[in-house]
Protein backbone atom coordinates (compact mmCIF):
# COMPACT_ATOMS: atom_id res chain seq x y z
CA UNK A 1 0.00 0.00 0.00
CA UNK A 2 2.81 2.32 0.85
CA UNK A 3 4.67 1.49 -2.34
CA UNK A 4 2.12 3.02 -4.69
CA UNK A 5 3.95 5.70 -6.56
CA UNK A 6 1.75 8.17 -8.34
CA UNK A 7 2.80 9.27 -11.81
CA UNK A 8 4.39 12.69 -11.99
CA UNK A 9 1.71 15.33 -11.88
CA UNK A 10 1.31 17.88 -14.61
CA UNK A 11 2.36 21.27 -13.35
CA UNK A 12 -0.83 23.21 -13.87
CA UNK A 13 0.74 26.45 -12.85
CA UNK A 14 2.75 26.27 -16.04
CA UNK A 15 -0.26 25.79 -18.33
CA UNK A 16 -0.77 28.63 -20.80
CA UNK A 17 -3.35 31.22 -19.82
CA UNK A 18 -5.77 30.43 -22.64
CA UNK A 19 -5.91 26.76 -21.79
CA UNK A 20 -6.55 27.58 -18.18
CA UNK A 21 -9.41 29.91 -19.01
CA UNK A 22 -10.97 27.29 -21.27
CA UNK A 23 -10.78 24.87 -18.37
CA UNK A 24 -12.47 27.30 -16.03
CA UNK A 25 -16.04 26.34 -16.95
CA UNK A 26 -15.19 22.66 -16.71
CA UNK A 27 -13.59 23.29 -13.36
CA UNK A 28 -16.67 25.16 -12.16
CA UNK A 29 -18.84 22.16 -13.01
CA UNK A 30 -16.46 19.62 -11.53
CA UNK A 31 -15.87 21.57 -8.34
CA UNK A 32 -19.61 22.18 -7.91
CA UNK A 33 -20.19 18.45 -8.21
CA UNK A 34 -17.48 17.65 -5.65
CA UNK A 35 -18.84 20.15 -3.14
CA UNK A 36 -22.47 19.09 -3.64
CA UNK A 37 -21.45 15.48 -3.12
CA UNK A 38 -19.65 16.49 0.05
CA UNK A 39 -22.79 18.21 1.38
CA UNK A 40 -25.05 15.27 0.53
CA UNK A 41 -22.63 12.83 2.14
CA UNK A 42 -22.57 14.96 5.29
CA UNK A 43 -26.37 14.99 5.42
CA UNK A 44 -26.59 11.22 4.99
CA UNK A 45 -24.16 10.79 7.87
CA UNK A 46 -26.32 12.74 10.29
CA UNK A 47 -29.36 10.48 10.62
CA UNK A 48 -30.93 12.56 13.40
CA UNK A 49 -30.72 15.74 11.35
CA UNK A 50 -31.93 13.87 8.28
CA UNK A 51 -34.91 12.54 10.23
CA UNK A 52 -35.79 16.02 11.49
CA UNK A 53 -35.68 17.53 8.00
CA UNK A 54 -38.00 14.78 6.81
CA UNK A 55 -40.32 14.69 9.80
CA UNK A 56 -40.79 18.46 9.98
CA UNK A 57 -42.90 18.82 6.82
CA UNK A 58 -45.00 15.86 7.84
CA UNK A 59 -45.78 17.54 11.13
CA UNK A 60 -46.64 20.84 9.44
CA UNK A 61 -48.88 19.07 7.00
CA UNK A 62 -50.77 16.95 9.51
CA UNK A 63 -50.86 19.58 12.27
CA UNK A 64 -52.06 22.48 10.15
CA UNK A 65 -54.20 20.18 8.09
CA UNK A 66 -56.12 19.18 11.21
CA UNK A 67 -55.98 22.49 13.06
CA UNK A 68 -57.43 24.61 10.29
CA UNK A 69 -59.52 21.97 8.59
CA UNK A 70 -62.65 24.06 8.76
CA UNK A 71 -61.27 27.32 7.36
CA UNK A 72 -62.35 26.22 3.91
CA UNK A 73 -65.91 26.94 5.05
CA UNK A 74 -65.15 30.63 5.48
CA UNK A 75 -67.04 32.43 2.72
CA UNK A 76 -64.63 33.54 0.02
CA UNK A 77 -62.03 30.82 0.66
CA UNK A 78 -60.89 29.33 -2.64
CA UNK A 79 -61.50 25.65 -1.92
CA UNK A 80 -62.01 25.08 -5.58
CA UNK A 81 -61.66 21.36 -5.49
CA UNK A 82 -62.27 20.72 -1.87
CA UNK A 83 -60.24 19.98 1.20
CA UNK A 84 -57.95 22.22 3.20
CA UNK A 85 -55.31 19.47 3.03
CA UNK A 86 -55.17 19.98 -0.72
CA UNK A 87 -54.98 23.72 -0.19
CA UNK A 88 -52.06 23.65 2.22
CA UNK A 89 -49.98 20.92 0.56
CA UNK A 90 -48.20 23.41 -1.75
CA UNK A 91 -48.07 25.86 1.18
CA UNK A 92 -46.30 23.35 3.41
CA UNK A 93 -43.94 22.40 0.59
CA UNK A 94 -42.84 26.00 0.10
CA UNK A 95 -42.69 26.55 3.86
CA UNK A 96 -40.41 23.54 4.28
CA UNK A 97 -38.13 24.77 1.52
CA UNK A 98 -38.10 28.19 3.16
CA UNK A 99 -37.19 26.98 6.62
CA UNK A 100 -34.47 24.54 5.63
CA UNK A 101 -32.80 26.95 3.19
CA UNK A 102 -32.80 29.71 5.82
CA UNK A 103 -30.18 27.57 7.57
CA UNK A 104 -27.98 27.19 4.50
CA UNK A 105 -25.44 29.77 5.62
CA UNK A 106 -24.65 27.88 8.81
CA UNK A 107 -22.47 25.54 6.72
CA UNK A 108 -20.28 28.49 5.68
CA UNK A 109 -19.95 29.63 9.26
CA UNK A 110 -18.95 26.14 10.40
CA UNK A 111 -16.40 26.06 7.58
CA UNK A 112 -15.06 29.48 8.59
CA UNK A 113 -14.80 28.50 12.24
CA UNK A 114 -12.99 25.30 11.38
CA UNK A 115 -10.57 26.82 8.90
CA UNK A 116 -12.06 24.77 6.04
CA UNK A 117 -13.09 28.00 4.32
CA UNK A 118 -9.55 29.39 4.32
CA UNK A 119 -8.13 26.13 3.07
CA UNK A 120 -10.64 26.06 0.21
CA UNK A 121 -9.98 29.71 -0.65
CA UNK A 122 -6.24 29.02 -0.78
CA UNK A 123 -6.95 26.15 -3.21
CA UNK A 124 -7.86 26.46 -6.88
CA UNK A 125 -11.52 25.70 -6.15
CA UNK A 126 -13.76 28.02 -8.17
CA UNK A 127 -15.51 30.57 -5.96
CA UNK A 128 -18.68 30.10 -7.99
CA UNK A 129 -18.54 26.38 -7.19
CA UNK A 130 -18.58 27.14 -3.48
CA UNK A 131 -21.87 28.94 -4.03
CA UNK A 132 -23.33 26.58 -6.61
CA UNK A 133 -22.44 23.61 -4.38
CA UNK A 134 -24.59 24.84 -1.51
CA UNK A 135 -27.44 25.81 -3.85
CA UNK A 136 -27.45 22.48 -5.67
CA UNK A 137 -27.47 20.72 -2.33
CA UNK A 138 -30.41 22.84 -1.13
CA UNK A 139 -32.35 22.12 -4.31
CA UNK A 140 -31.70 18.42 -3.95
CA UNK A 141 -32.92 18.42 -0.34
CA UNK A 142 -35.94 20.48 -1.31
CA UNK A 143 -36.85 18.09 -4.12
CA UNK A 144 -36.73 15.11 -1.79
CA UNK A 145 -38.76 16.91 0.87
CA UNK A 146 -41.32 18.02 -1.70
CA UNK A 147 -41.84 14.50 -2.94
CA UNK A 148 -42.23 13.25 0.62
CA UNK A 149 -44.87 15.86 1.41
CA UNK A 150 -46.71 14.85 -1.74
CA UNK A 151 -46.53 11.23 -0.64
CA UNK A 152 -47.97 12.01 2.81
CA UNK A 153 -50.67 14.26 1.36
CA UNK A 154 -51.66 11.55 -1.09
CA UNK A 155 -51.77 8.95 1.67
CA UNK A 156 -53.99 11.29 3.67
CA UNK A 157 -56.45 11.50 0.83
CA UNK A 158 -55.40 14.63 -1.07
CA UNK A 159 -55.77 14.42 -4.84
CA UNK A 160 -54.34 16.89 -7.35
CA UNK A 161 -55.87 17.23 -10.77
CA UNK A 162 -52.79 19.00 -12.07
CA UNK A 163 -50.98 15.63 -12.24
CA UNK A 164 -47.32 15.23 -13.13
CA UNK A 165 -47.03 18.74 -14.58
CA UNK A 166 -48.42 20.16 -11.35
CA UNK A 167 -45.90 18.21 -9.30
CA UNK A 168 -43.09 19.34 -11.58
CA UNK A 169 -44.04 23.01 -11.30
CA UNK A 170 -44.29 22.64 -7.52
CA UNK A 171 -40.79 21.10 -7.32
CA UNK A 172 -39.46 23.91 -9.51
CA UNK A 173 -41.14 26.65 -7.47
CA UNK A 174 -39.92 25.11 -4.20
CA UNK A 175 -36.35 24.82 -5.55
CA UNK A 176 -36.37 28.42 -6.76
CA UNK A 177 -37.55 29.84 -3.45
CA UNK A 178 -35.03 27.59 -1.74
CA UNK A 179 -32.21 28.98 -3.91
CA UNK A 180 -33.36 32.56 -3.23
CA UNK A 181 -33.40 32.08 0.54
CA UNK A 182 -30.23 29.94 0.64
CA UNK A 183 -28.30 32.61 -1.30
CA UNK A 184 -29.58 35.24 1.07
CA UNK A 185 -28.59 33.10 4.05
CA UNK A 186 -25.13 32.53 2.53
CA UNK A 187 -24.64 36.24 1.96
CA UNK A 188 -25.63 37.05 5.55
CA UNK A 189 -23.32 34.29 6.80
CA UNK A 190 -20.38 35.80 4.91
CA UNK A 191 -21.15 39.26 6.25
CA UNK A 192 -21.95 38.57 9.92
CA UNK A 193 -19.79 35.40 10.34
CA UNK A 194 -21.59 34.43 13.49
CA UNK A 195 -24.03 31.57 13.89
CA UNK A 196 -26.41 33.27 16.35
CA UNK A 197 -26.64 36.46 14.31
CA UNK A 198 -27.33 34.49 11.13
CA UNK A 199 -30.09 32.42 12.72
CA UNK A 200 -31.64 35.54 14.27
CA UNK A 201 -31.68 37.44 10.99
CA UNK A 202 -32.89 34.45 9.04
CA UNK A 203 -35.83 33.83 11.41
CA UNK A 204 -36.66 37.51 11.31
CA UNK A 205 -36.99 37.35 7.53
CA UNK A 206 -38.45 33.89 7.08
CA UNK A 207 -41.37 34.02 9.51
CA UNK A 208 -43.03 37.18 8.12
CA UNK A 209 -42.46 35.90 4.56
CA UNK A 210 -44.24 32.75 5.57
CA UNK A 211 -47.27 34.30 7.23
CA UNK A 212 -47.70 37.19 4.81
CA UNK A 213 -48.44 34.71 2.04
CA UNK A 214 -51.18 32.35 1.05
CA UNK A 215 -49.32 29.24 2.26
CA UNK A 216 -51.71 28.33 5.04
CA UNK A 217 -54.51 30.86 4.54
CA UNK A 218 -56.20 32.10 1.41
CA UNK A 219 -55.30 35.78 1.23
CA UNK A 220 -58.75 36.47 -0.16
CA UNK A 221 -60.07 36.08 3.37
CA UNK A 222 -57.11 37.93 4.95
CA UNK A 223 -57.08 41.68 5.67
CA UNK A 224 -56.55 43.78 2.56
CA UNK A 225 -53.04 44.90 3.55
CA UNK A 226 -51.86 41.30 3.85
CA UNK A 227 -53.24 40.66 0.40
CA UNK A 228 -51.28 43.63 -0.95
CA UNK A 229 -48.05 42.65 0.77
CA UNK A 230 -48.41 39.08 -0.43
CA UNK A 231 -48.38 40.24 -4.03
CA UNK A 232 -44.74 41.26 -3.58
CA UNK A 233 -43.78 38.27 -1.47
CA UNK A 234 -41.66 35.63 -3.29
CA UNK A 235 -43.01 32.98 -0.95
CA UNK A 236 -46.47 33.80 -2.19
CA UNK A 237 -45.29 33.68 -5.82
CA UNK A 238 -43.99 30.15 -5.26
CA UNK A 239 -47.07 29.00 -3.37
CA UNK A 240 -49.56 30.51 -5.81
CA UNK A 241 -47.74 29.11 -8.85
CA UNK A 242 -47.61 25.64 -7.32
CA UNK A 243 -51.22 25.71 -6.18
CA UNK A 244 -52.48 26.83 -9.55
CA UNK A 245 -50.45 24.18 -11.38
CA UNK A 246 -51.77 21.50 -9.05
CA UNK A 247 -55.39 22.48 -9.54
CA UNK A 248 -57.17 20.99 -12.50
CA UNK A 249 -57.25 24.35 -14.28
CA UNK A 250 -53.75 25.78 -14.25
CA UNK A 251 -53.58 29.47 -15.09
CA UNK A 252 -50.31 29.67 -16.96
CA UNK A 253 -50.65 33.41 -17.30
CA UNK A 254 -50.29 33.58 -13.52
CA UNK A 255 -47.78 30.72 -13.09
CA UNK A 256 -45.11 31.65 -15.61
CA UNK A 257 -44.56 35.28 -14.56
CA UNK A 258 -44.26 34.17 -10.95
CA UNK A 259 -41.68 31.51 -11.82
CA UNK A 260 -39.90 34.17 -13.89
CA UNK A 261 -39.81 36.59 -10.96
CA UNK A 262 -38.47 33.83 -8.73
CA UNK A 263 -35.75 33.03 -11.25
CA UNK A 264 -34.75 36.68 -11.53
CA UNK A 265 -34.67 37.01 -7.76
CA UNK A 266 -32.59 33.82 -7.50
CA UNK A 267 -30.02 35.28 -9.92
CA UNK A 268 -29.95 38.57 -8.01
CA UNK A 269 -29.47 36.81 -4.68
CA UNK A 270 -26.74 34.63 -6.20
CA UNK A 271 -24.95 37.84 -7.23
CA UNK A 272 -25.37 39.20 -3.73
CA UNK A 273 -23.81 36.05 -2.25
CA UNK A 274 -20.88 36.33 -4.68
CA UNK A 275 -20.31 39.94 -3.64
CA UNK A 276 -20.50 38.95 0.01
CA UNK A 277 -17.76 36.41 -0.73
CA UNK A 278 -15.53 39.20 -2.00
CA UNK A 279 -16.23 41.28 1.07
CA UNK A 280 -15.33 38.31 3.26
CA UNK A 281 -12.03 37.88 1.43
CA UNK A 282 -11.21 41.57 1.70
CA UNK A 283 -11.63 41.34 5.45
CA UNK A 284 -8.96 38.63 5.76
Amino acid at each position, binding site marked *: *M*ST*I*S*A*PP*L*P*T*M*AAAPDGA*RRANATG*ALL*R*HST*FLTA*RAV*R*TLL*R*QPAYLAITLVQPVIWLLLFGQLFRNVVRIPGFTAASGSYLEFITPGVIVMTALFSSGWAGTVYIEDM*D*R*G*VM*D*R*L*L*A*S*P*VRRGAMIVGTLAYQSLTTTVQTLIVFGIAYASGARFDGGAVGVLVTVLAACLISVVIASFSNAIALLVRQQEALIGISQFIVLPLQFLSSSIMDTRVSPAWVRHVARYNPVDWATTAARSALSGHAEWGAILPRLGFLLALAVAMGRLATRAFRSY*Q*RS*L
Partner: protein
Amino acid sequence: MSPNPAAALVAAELTKTYPAGRGGPPVRALDGLSVSVAAGTIVALLGRNGAGKSTTVKILTTLARADSGTAEVAGIDVSRDPDGVRHAIGLVSQKSSSDPMATGRENLVLAGRIQGLSRSAARGRAAELLARLDLADAAGRLAKTYSGGMARKLDVAIGLVHRPRVLFLDEPTTGLDPEARAAMWAEIGRLSADEQTAILLTTHYLEEADRLADRVAIVDAGRVVVEGTPDELKSELRGDTVQVELVAGAAHAVAVLERVPGLGEVSADGTRLRARAESGAQAVPGVLAALDESGIAVASVTVARPSLDDVYVRHVGREFAEEAAA
Protein backbone atom coordinates in the same frame (compact mmCIF):
# COMPACT_ATOMS: atom_id res chain seq x y z
CA MET B 1 16.10 43.10 -4.34
CA SER B 2 17.44 40.69 -6.95
CA PRO B 3 15.27 37.61 -7.30
CA ASN B 4 17.04 34.44 -6.33
CA PRO B 5 16.45 31.80 -9.02
CA ALA B 6 16.57 28.99 -6.48
CA ALA B 7 14.04 30.69 -4.24
CA ALA B 8 10.65 28.98 -3.97
CA LEU B 9 9.24 32.06 -2.31
CA VAL B 10 10.31 35.69 -2.27
CA ALA B 11 8.37 38.40 -0.48
CA ALA B 12 9.64 41.95 -0.39
CA GLU B 13 8.52 44.93 1.64
CA LEU B 14 5.01 43.71 2.35
CA THR B 15 2.72 46.10 4.16
CA LYS B 16 -0.83 45.58 5.35
CA THR B 17 -3.02 47.76 7.51
CA TYR B 18 -6.36 46.60 8.83
CA PRO B 19 -9.05 49.24 9.22
CA ALA B 20 -9.92 50.40 12.70
CA GLY B 21 -12.14 48.19 14.82
CA ARG B 22 -14.74 49.92 16.98
CA GLY B 23 -13.16 53.24 17.84
CA GLY B 24 -9.61 51.83 17.84
CA PRO B 25 -6.84 53.00 15.55
CA PRO B 26 -6.08 51.11 12.33
CA VAL B 27 -3.78 48.15 12.91
CA ARG B 28 -0.50 48.08 10.99
CA ALA B 29 -0.13 44.29 10.72
CA LEU B 30 2.81 44.31 8.30
CA ASP B 31 5.31 47.10 8.05
CA GLY B 32 7.73 46.21 5.27
CA LEU B 33 8.19 42.50 5.86
CA SER B 34 10.61 40.65 3.57
CA VAL B 35 11.36 36.96 3.59
CA SER B 36 12.52 34.29 1.16
CA VAL B 37 12.60 30.52 1.19
CA ALA B 38 14.99 28.48 -0.96
CA ALA B 39 13.68 25.37 -2.67
CA GLY B 40 13.69 22.33 -0.41
CA THR B 41 14.38 24.24 2.80
CA ILE B 42 12.39 25.19 5.88
CA VAL B 43 12.19 28.81 6.99
CA ALA B 44 10.54 29.68 10.30
CA LEU B 45 8.84 32.98 11.00
CA LEU B 46 9.23 33.29 14.74
CA GLY B 47 7.32 35.85 16.74
CA ARG B 48 4.69 36.42 19.33
CA ASN B 49 0.96 36.59 18.56
CA GLY B 50 0.16 39.69 16.57
CA ALA B 51 3.70 40.09 15.22
CA GLY B 52 2.47 39.64 11.65
CA LYS B 53 3.20 35.97 10.97
CA SER B 54 -0.32 34.92 10.08
CA THR B 55 -0.95 38.01 7.98
CA THR B 56 2.17 37.12 5.99
CA VAL B 57 0.86 33.61 5.41
CA LYS B 58 -2.55 34.95 4.36
CA ILE B 59 -0.95 37.20 1.76
CA LEU B 60 1.41 34.53 0.43
CA THR B 61 -1.43 31.99 0.16
CA THR B 62 -3.65 34.51 -1.76
CA LEU B 63 -6.21 34.73 1.03
CA ALA B 64 -5.46 38.40 1.63
CA ARG B 65 -3.90 41.14 -0.46
CA ALA B 66 -0.97 43.25 0.65
CA ASP B 67 -1.39 47.03 0.57
CA SER B 68 2.07 47.28 -0.99
CA GLY B 69 5.12 45.15 -1.62
CA THR B 70 5.64 42.18 -3.91
CA ALA B 71 5.51 38.46 -3.44
CA GLU B 72 6.29 35.56 -5.74
CA VAL B 73 5.51 32.01 -4.80
CA ALA B 74 6.92 29.27 -7.03
CA GLY B 75 7.87 32.05 -9.43
CA ILE B 76 4.27 33.30 -9.69
CA ASP B 77 3.19 36.76 -8.57
CA VAL B 78 0.55 36.37 -5.85
CA SER B 79 -1.48 39.42 -6.80
CA ARG B 80 -1.29 38.99 -10.56
CA ASP B 81 -2.03 35.27 -10.78
CA PRO B 82 -3.52 34.07 -7.50
CA ASP B 83 -5.04 31.01 -9.14
CA GLY B 84 -1.64 29.95 -10.45
CA VAL B 85 -0.24 30.28 -6.95
CA ARG B 86 -3.09 28.18 -5.53
CA HIS B 87 -2.04 25.26 -7.70
CA ALA B 88 1.51 25.48 -6.42
CA ILE B 89 0.95 25.75 -2.68
CA GLY B 90 -0.40 23.76 0.23
CA LEU B 91 -1.77 25.44 3.34
CA VAL B 92 -1.96 23.96 6.81
CA SER B 93 -3.78 26.69 8.71
CA GLN B 94 -3.73 27.33 12.45
CA LYS B 95 -6.96 25.53 13.08
CA SER B 96 -7.53 21.95 12.05
CA SER B 97 -9.15 22.33 8.68
CA SER B 98 -10.28 18.87 7.68
CA ASP B 99 -13.96 18.17 7.14
CA PRO B 100 -15.08 16.46 10.37
CA MET B 101 -17.91 14.59 8.67
CA ALA B 102 -15.66 13.03 6.04
CA THR B 103 -13.17 10.21 6.52
CA GLY B 104 -9.45 10.85 6.30
CA ARG B 105 -9.39 9.28 2.87
CA GLU B 106 -12.38 11.29 1.61
CA ASN B 107 -10.79 14.51 2.84
CA LEU B 108 -7.64 13.74 0.86
CA VAL B 109 -9.42 12.61 -2.30
CA LEU B 110 -11.59 15.76 -2.36
CA ALA B 111 -8.54 17.99 -1.87
CA GLY B 112 -6.73 16.13 -4.66
CA ARG B 113 -9.69 16.35 -7.04
CA ILE B 114 -9.99 20.10 -6.44
CA GLN B 115 -6.31 20.39 -7.31
CA GLY B 116 -7.04 18.68 -10.61
CA LEU B 117 -5.94 15.10 -9.96
CA SER B 118 -7.91 12.35 -11.66
CA ARG B 119 -9.97 10.15 -9.38
CA SER B 120 -7.45 7.31 -9.50
CA ALA B 121 -4.45 9.61 -9.04
CA ALA B 122 -6.17 11.25 -6.05
CA ARG B 123 -6.93 7.86 -4.52
CA GLY B 124 -3.40 6.65 -5.05
CA ARG B 125 -1.88 9.76 -3.57
CA ALA B 126 -4.32 9.62 -0.63
CA ALA B 127 -3.29 6.03 0.15
CA GLU B 128 0.37 6.94 -0.14
CA LEU B 129 0.09 9.91 2.23
CA LEU B 130 -2.08 8.05 4.74
CA ALA B 131 0.52 5.29 4.91
CA ARG B 132 3.38 7.77 5.09
CA LEU B 133 1.81 9.71 7.96
CA ASP B 134 0.82 6.60 9.84
CA LEU B 135 -2.89 7.18 9.34
CA ALA B 136 -3.62 4.12 7.20
CA ASP B 137 -5.54 2.40 10.01
CA ALA B 138 -7.72 5.46 10.51
CA ALA B 139 -8.21 6.15 6.79
CA GLY B 140 -11.85 5.03 6.83
CA ARG B 141 -12.83 6.81 10.04
CA LEU B 142 -14.53 10.20 10.18
CA ALA B 143 -12.02 12.98 10.84
CA LYS B 144 -14.05 14.14 13.85
CA THR B 145 -12.96 10.97 15.69
CA TYR B 146 -9.25 11.75 15.21
CA SER B 147 -7.06 12.83 18.13
CA GLY B 148 -5.47 16.29 17.97
CA GLY B 149 -2.20 14.87 16.68
CA MET B 150 -3.89 12.70 14.04
CA ALA B 151 -6.06 15.59 12.85
CA ARG B 152 -2.96 17.73 12.45
CA LYS B 153 -1.23 15.02 10.43
CA LEU B 154 -4.30 14.79 8.23
CA ASP B 155 -4.12 18.57 7.71
CA VAL B 156 -0.51 18.21 6.59
CA ALA B 157 -1.44 15.36 4.26
CA ILE B 158 -4.22 17.51 2.74
CA GLY B 159 -1.69 20.28 2.20
CA LEU B 160 0.67 17.90 0.41
CA VAL B 161 -1.80 15.99 -1.73
CA HIS B 162 -0.89 17.76 -4.99
CA ARG B 163 2.88 17.82 -4.30
CA PRO B 164 3.01 21.59 -3.85
CA ARG B 165 6.22 23.49 -4.47
CA VAL B 166 5.67 25.46 -1.26
CA LEU B 167 3.93 24.29 1.90
CA PHE B 168 2.74 26.79 4.50
CA LEU B 169 2.53 25.52 8.06
CA ASP B 170 0.81 28.11 10.24
CA GLU B 171 1.59 27.17 13.84
CA PRO B 172 1.46 23.45 13.13
CA THR B 173 1.87 22.27 16.71
CA THR B 174 -0.10 24.85 18.69
CA GLY B 175 -2.48 23.02 20.99
CA LEU B 176 -0.80 19.64 20.67
CA ASP B 177 0.42 17.74 23.71
CA PRO B 178 4.21 17.29 23.98
CA GLU B 179 4.16 13.77 22.59
CA ALA B 180 2.09 14.71 19.55
CA ARG B 181 4.29 17.76 19.06
CA ALA B 182 7.44 15.65 19.01
CA ALA B 183 5.81 13.28 16.50
CA MET B 184 4.81 16.26 14.34
CA TRP B 185 8.34 17.65 14.41
CA ALA B 186 9.76 14.32 13.26
CA GLU B 187 7.17 14.25 10.48
CA ILE B 188 7.87 17.78 9.24
CA GLY B 189 11.61 17.12 9.26
CA ARG B 190 11.15 14.04 7.11
CA LEU B 191 8.73 15.77 4.76
CA SER B 192 11.04 18.53 3.73
CA ALA B 193 13.68 15.94 2.92
CA ASP B 194 11.40 13.53 1.02
CA GLU B 195 9.01 15.80 -0.81
CA GLN B 196 11.49 18.43 -1.96
CA THR B 197 8.99 20.99 -0.81
CA ALA B 198 9.95 24.42 0.47
CA ILE B 199 8.26 25.03 3.82
CA LEU B 200 7.38 28.34 5.41
CA LEU B 201 6.58 27.67 9.04
CA THR B 202 5.19 30.13 11.54
CA THR B 203 5.59 29.41 15.19
CA HIS B 204 5.73 30.97 18.58
CA TYR B 205 7.77 28.10 19.94
CA LEU B 206 11.47 28.87 19.95
CA GLU B 207 12.31 25.22 20.25
CA GLU B 208 10.25 24.44 17.17
CA ALA B 209 12.08 27.01 15.07
CA ASP B 210 15.41 25.82 16.41
CA ARG B 211 14.69 22.15 15.73
CA LEU B 212 13.05 22.36 12.33
CA ALA B 213 14.16 25.43 10.47
CA ASP B 214 17.14 25.81 8.18
CA ARG B 215 16.70 29.54 8.60
CA VAL B 216 14.82 31.57 11.19
CA ALA B 217 13.37 35.03 10.69
CA ILE B 218 12.37 36.78 13.89
CA VAL B 219 9.27 38.90 13.30
CA ASP B 220 8.23 41.79 15.47
CA ALA B 221 5.74 44.60 14.83
CA GLY B 222 5.22 43.58 11.22
CA ARG B 223 8.81 43.26 10.07
CA VAL B 224 11.70 40.82 10.16
CA VAL B 225 14.15 42.11 12.74
CA VAL B 226 16.84 39.49 12.15
CA GLU B 227 17.25 36.47 9.92
CA GLY B 228 19.78 33.64 9.66
CA THR B 229 20.41 30.00 10.45
CA PRO B 230 19.77 29.16 14.11
CA ASP B 231 23.52 28.70 14.57
CA GLU B 232 24.41 31.99 12.94
CA LEU B 233 21.91 33.80 15.10
CA LYS B 234 23.19 32.18 18.25
CA SER B 235 26.86 32.63 17.40
CA GLU B 236 26.41 36.35 16.93
CA LEU B 237 25.88 36.35 20.66
CA ARG B 238 29.33 35.57 21.97
CA GLY B 239 29.66 33.81 25.29
CA ASP B 240 27.07 32.50 27.72
CA THR B 241 23.94 33.82 29.36
CA VAL B 242 24.03 34.21 33.11
CA GLN B 243 20.60 34.34 34.61
CA VAL B 244 20.04 35.26 38.24
CA GLU B 245 16.75 34.83 40.00
CA LEU B 246 16.42 37.16 42.98
CA VAL B 247 14.33 36.50 46.06
CA ALA B 248 12.79 39.95 45.67
CA GLY B 249 13.08 42.63 43.02
CA ALA B 250 15.88 45.14 43.64
CA ALA B 251 16.10 48.39 41.75
CA HIS B 252 19.86 48.74 41.99
CA ALA B 253 20.64 45.10 41.06
CA VAL B 254 21.36 45.99 37.41
CA ALA B 255 23.84 48.67 38.43
CA VAL B 256 25.55 46.20 40.77
CA LEU B 257 25.97 43.60 38.01
CA GLU B 258 27.19 46.13 35.49
CA ARG B 259 30.20 46.72 37.73
CA VAL B 260 31.16 43.01 37.70
CA PRO B 261 34.17 42.53 35.38
CA GLY B 262 33.56 40.33 32.31
CA LEU B 263 29.80 40.85 32.41
CA GLY B 264 27.83 42.80 29.79
CA GLU B 265 24.35 43.43 28.40
CA VAL B 266 22.72 43.35 31.81
CA SER B 267 18.95 43.48 31.79
CA ALA B 268 16.31 43.01 34.45
CA ASP B 269 12.80 41.67 34.20
CA GLY B 270 11.04 41.60 37.56
CA THR B 271 13.09 39.40 39.84
CA ARG B 272 15.11 37.99 36.93
CA LEU B 273 18.44 39.42 35.86
CA ARG B 274 20.16 38.49 32.64
CA ALA B 275 23.67 39.21 31.51
CA ARG B 276 26.17 37.93 29.02
CA ALA B 277 29.63 36.71 29.87
CA GLU B 278 32.54 35.38 27.85
CA SER B 279 32.61 32.42 30.20
CA GLY B 280 29.59 32.01 32.38
CA ALA B 281 31.18 29.64 34.83
CA GLN B 282 34.04 32.06 35.58
CA ALA B 283 31.67 34.99 36.01
CA VAL B 284 29.33 33.36 38.54
CA PRO B 285 31.50 33.78 41.70
CA GLY B 286 31.93 37.49 40.96
CA VAL B 287 28.19 37.90 40.38
CA LEU B 288 27.27 36.22 43.65
CA ALA B 289 29.89 38.17 45.61
CA ALA B 290 28.73 41.51 44.21
CA LEU B 291 25.07 40.85 44.94
CA ASP B 292 25.90 39.56 48.42
CA GLU B 293 27.93 42.70 49.20
CA SER B 294 24.98 44.87 48.19
CA GLY B 295 22.65 42.86 50.40
CA ILE B 296 20.59 41.40 47.51
CA ALA B 297 19.35 37.86 48.20
CA VAL B 298 19.75 35.38 45.35
CA ALA B 299 17.32 32.51 44.76
CA SER B 300 19.18 30.79 41.91
CA VAL B 301 21.83 31.25 39.26
CA THR B 302 21.92 29.51 35.90
CA VAL B 303 24.43 29.60 33.08
CA ALA B 304 23.36 28.68 29.59
CA ARG B 305 24.80 28.55 26.10
CA PRO B 306 23.12 31.15 23.87
CA SER B 307 19.63 30.15 22.80
CA LEU B 308 17.21 31.62 20.29
CA ASP B 309 15.51 33.20 23.27
CA ASP B 310 18.63 35.29 23.83
CA VAL B 311 18.66 36.24 20.18
CA TYR B 312 15.05 37.29 20.51
CA VAL B 313 15.70 39.39 23.60
CA ARG B 314 18.61 41.07 21.92
CA HIS B 315 16.66 42.06 18.81
CA VAL B 316 13.19 42.64 20.13
CA GLY B 317 14.21 43.92 23.55
CA ARG B 318 11.71 41.80 25.41
CA GLU B 319 11.79 38.28 26.64
CA PHE B 320 10.08 35.85 24.32
CA ALA B 321 8.28 33.44 26.63
CA GLU B 322 6.44 36.21 28.46
CA GLU B 323 5.49 37.93 25.24
CA ALA B 324 4.14 34.71 23.83
CA ALA B 325 2.22 33.97 26.98
CA ALA B 326 0.78 37.47 27.19
